[in-house]
């Protein structure tokens, strides 16, 4: 059976919405890796933790999950700072392998903390104003996804503005470029690291609240995002926000198209095949500079 143009269009649209959310998730990870060189394998697990927080708050206040970002983002910013001070700072100069081991350890702790606190049942938010579809003839748009895509894009562009147009952004980019030179220029590298890591974790708080408008929380949801986010970063290259958005959209669309047209099982593997191919032929990523 040949798929109709409407179905293909719908599926691309779904992919685009998903892609924008991916770009928000990847942004924090990419910042932390690009600036600090820290390979954070627990990034997805912070989203998981955030989802539970959103679930508690949204159900308690009987309100939409997206509003909960007002609470989760500051809270996760502080959690990020605390984790940076206690765990990340002591391993900054050490081998990447040790850093990975530590972040994997954080992941284990978060997952099992959630398991002990909330047990393994998935949790979804009851009240959401956004869980409806707008039927527009050929396609229908899931409002929750539209809003989350829009907010994701807004925040990603906001962070882009922060990085390119403000003094702090300049300092962050200088630190990413060369730590030693940056510190010679009078930039307090320690403070920049603290800021970047907190920001990276803070963004997961936002991603979690957008996720909960249509998704649900369970202790292992983090692993669905972890590796995929890295694939997005690799495809985007560490060049900039535009590359990140482009690769997020590509991954989102590829996933959505293969899921609709081929098979949902295949759709899990395809981004990784593309990833390995791209690494072979363009090690700097699709959109990275040489």
């Amino acid at each position, binding site marked *: 059976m040949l798929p109709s143009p409407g179905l293909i269009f719908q599926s691309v649209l779904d992919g685009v919405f*998903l892609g924008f959310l991916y770009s928000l998730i990847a942004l924090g990870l990419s910042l932390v890796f690009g600036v600090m060189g820290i390979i954070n394998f627990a990034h997805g697990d912070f989203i998981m933790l955030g989802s539970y927080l959103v679930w508690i708050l949204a159900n308690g206040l009987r309100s939409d999950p997206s509003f909960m970002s007002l609470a989760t983002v500051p809270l996760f910013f502080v959690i990020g700072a605390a984790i940076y001070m206690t765990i990340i700072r002591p391993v900054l100069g050490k081998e990447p392998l040790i850093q990975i081991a530590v972040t994997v350890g954080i992941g284990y702790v978060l997952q099992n903390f959630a*398991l002990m606190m909330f047990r393994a*049942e998935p949790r979804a938010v009851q009240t959401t104003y956004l869980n409806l579809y707008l039927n527009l003839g050929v396609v229908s748009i*899931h409002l929750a996804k539209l809003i989350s895509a829009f907010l994701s894009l807004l925040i990603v562009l906001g962070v882009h503005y922060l990085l390119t147009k403000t003094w702090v952004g300049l300092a962050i980019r200088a630190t990413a470029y060369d730590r030693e030179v940056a510190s010679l220029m009078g930039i307090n590298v320690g403070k920049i690291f603290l800021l970047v890591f907190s920001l990276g974790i803070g963004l997961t708080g936002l991603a979690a609240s957008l996720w909960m408008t249509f998704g649900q929380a369970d202790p292992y949801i983090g692993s669905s995002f972890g590796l995929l986010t890295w694939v997005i970063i690799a495809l985007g290259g560490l060049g900039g926000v535009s590359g990140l958005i482009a690769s997020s959209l590509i991954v989102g669309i590829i996933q*959505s198209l293969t899921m609709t047209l081929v098979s*949902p099982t295949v759709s899990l593997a395809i981004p990784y095949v593309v990833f390995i191919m791209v690494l072979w032929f363009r090690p700097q990523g699709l959109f990275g500079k040489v």
Partner: protein
Amino acid sequence: MHTKNSLREAISKTVGIVIGLVIVIAAVAGVLIYMTTQVPLTTTTPTTTKPTIEKVKIGIIEPLTGRYAVFGQEAVDAARLLVDIINNELGGVNSLGGARLELYVEDAGTSPDSAALAAERLVSTYRPHIILGAYISRLTAAVAEVTEREKIPLVMDALVDWLTEKGWNYVFRLAPRASTHGKAAVDFVLEMTQKKNVSIRTVVVLHEDSIFGTTVANGIRSQLIAKRVIPNETITYPHTITDFGPIISRIRELNPDIILSVPYFSDGILFAKALQASGIKVKFIAGAGGCGYTDPDSIREAGEAVEYFTNTYSYNPARQTEWNKRIVRAFQQKYGKLPTEAAGIIFYSLMFVYESLEKAGQMFPEDPLNPDNLKTIFLSLDLNDSNSIAAQLYPTGRIKLAANGENLYGGTAILQVIEGQPKVVWPEAEEGVTPVFPRP
């Protein structure tokens, strides 16, 4: 700088010593525990004088951590409750002089590795007389290898078909096998379409890709084909799915009258919500396989989205028998929610074990806990609502094991969510309930 370094050295040295000490203590404790708990193999050596049995040891191995913990935790909760009821309300195993059941819980983890270790540990430290477990098929297989070798009867709560086809001698299963679920869902839907004179043109089978989902879906398909209804499309999706958007698009395209669906757990909630939001009108959504849609957790999480969905159930929490009502009430009191299928299977499996023990005390007073004697009794019992509590807890009300350890009367109940409550609608609807078909 120097003091900081030496401080760090001191800390790391201390940590090293502590780790070392822990290991040594663990080793010594392990050996001591092993020596003190090693039980002489009384069960296999026939004795001439009638032994006084004070307790019957029941092992339960369930996944309590990892992805499957949601089922395992529920099963263990159910076992704890039932052991309580048996010991306190039924007075233990009366034919064994009121011997009490004692429960030993082990975490099977997520892999056959840890499941096998759990089984070996349980066997070598406590040597239970009967073991229950382990919900997931490959974990159960790892456990069964051990229980076979040690000749300990294993009453499984895993549903996948092949587990009773490997020629194991001490493996029993009361719960209906996975493919039965698929068959039941089809029978129910076809019966309803005839009764209510609903025409169906398009049927879609939608299932998650785990071994369970695939087995149930195979059951659905073969029953459909047997009834000369050819499914228009089968959609398989990963059980870890996080976004149903693309699948909803495809369903919109196919515009089915009936969706026969095998959800895993969380995906069921996701799907129901996505379908509701999409506004697609599907005449009926019939689930199969017991997880998702109609269990209290799903109803709580999905809310109105699952209204009028049905699902086949290995357990029927609404069955109006005296004991079933009593146990469901006790479960609700203790844990604050209705029991799901994972709990229900343990209810009747453990109750069946208890009734077998009663019988063993009468038939084999000199050696009631001998595994071969237990097997003889397991296979000889023919239970129904009037003569057994276990049967009262079972969806079809009848339990009789075949030679391969499988229940001949294995069957499911179908529950429908009506006004936010799971109600039994098929094969016999509970009092005052009629199935709503098609969905309004």
